[in-house]
């Protein structure tokens, strides 16, 4: 039975999607953009600041669902510019420092709200 995960510690959805859906100990987290959950606005800052906010949002959803960063099995990192790849990796590595998840990363044409980064996550226990 699918379970909808909701937390105020991560940004509210800006469209018709759930923050995360859990089923059979698999957690599907919606693509997170660097919105500060307190202000509801995109954070002001470069790729490092934005990546940090995205990963904090993912962390809040993981916690709400009873998972940790260590349970993440797959990430998809979408960048507004491929030149942000290295700086994104530096922040990303701090959150995923051992048993790093499988990952796809690429530059897209545009992201919602003009974000520099969106990260989608699948976790499993």
């Amino acid at each position, binding site marked *: 039975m699918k379970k909808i995960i909701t937390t105020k510690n991560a940004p509210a959805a800006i469209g018709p*999607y759930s923050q995360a859906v859990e*089923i059979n100990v*698999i957690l*599907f987290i919606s*693509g997170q953009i660097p919105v500060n959950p307190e202000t509801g606005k995109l954070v002001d800052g470069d790729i490092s600041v934005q990546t940090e906010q995205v990963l904090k949002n993912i962390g809040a959803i993981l916690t709400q669902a009873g998972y940790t960063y260590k349970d993440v099995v797959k990430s998809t990192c979408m960048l507004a510019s491929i030149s942000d790849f290295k700086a994104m990796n530096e922040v990303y590595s701090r959150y995923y420092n051992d048993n790093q998840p499988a990952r796809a990363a690429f530059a*897209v*044409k545009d992201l*919602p709200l003009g974000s520099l980064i969106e990260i989608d996550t*699948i976790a499993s226990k």
Partner: protein
Amino acid sequence: MKKTLFIIAILSFIAGTSCKTEDKDEKEVKRVITLENTPARRPYSPAIEVDNMLFVSGQIAISQATGALIEGGIEDQTRQVLTNLKNIIEKSGYTMEQVVKCTVLLQDISFYAPMNLVYMEYFPKDPPARMAFAVKDLPMGALIEIDAIAVK
């Protein structure tokens, strides 16, 4: 010589048997979903089921009647894409309520709001997790492509 041939024969028999077992296991675990009008030459299946999980290939706004991309703007294309998805999901024995994850690829990020309005009609309650973004280009010049994962 005779002895060598005998050993080879035994080994091939063992190899043959183990291959068959693997095939059987594979068939039990992974099910390929096909539709009556699945184009023969595409190197992907409309959907694959494994255990109780259904992976639906990215759908673009192709009319099942004509096999061509429909005329129309983002609203019409979104509706056609979701109709195609729903069709595959239901033919696979799943429901739209069982969809847990979608990926929405847009040809232009300005389609985000109008896409959402149509998308909501198909997922009115407890919508799936989702990622959405604009890509450089989509097959056949489509305006939108959506893929889905459903779980029973």
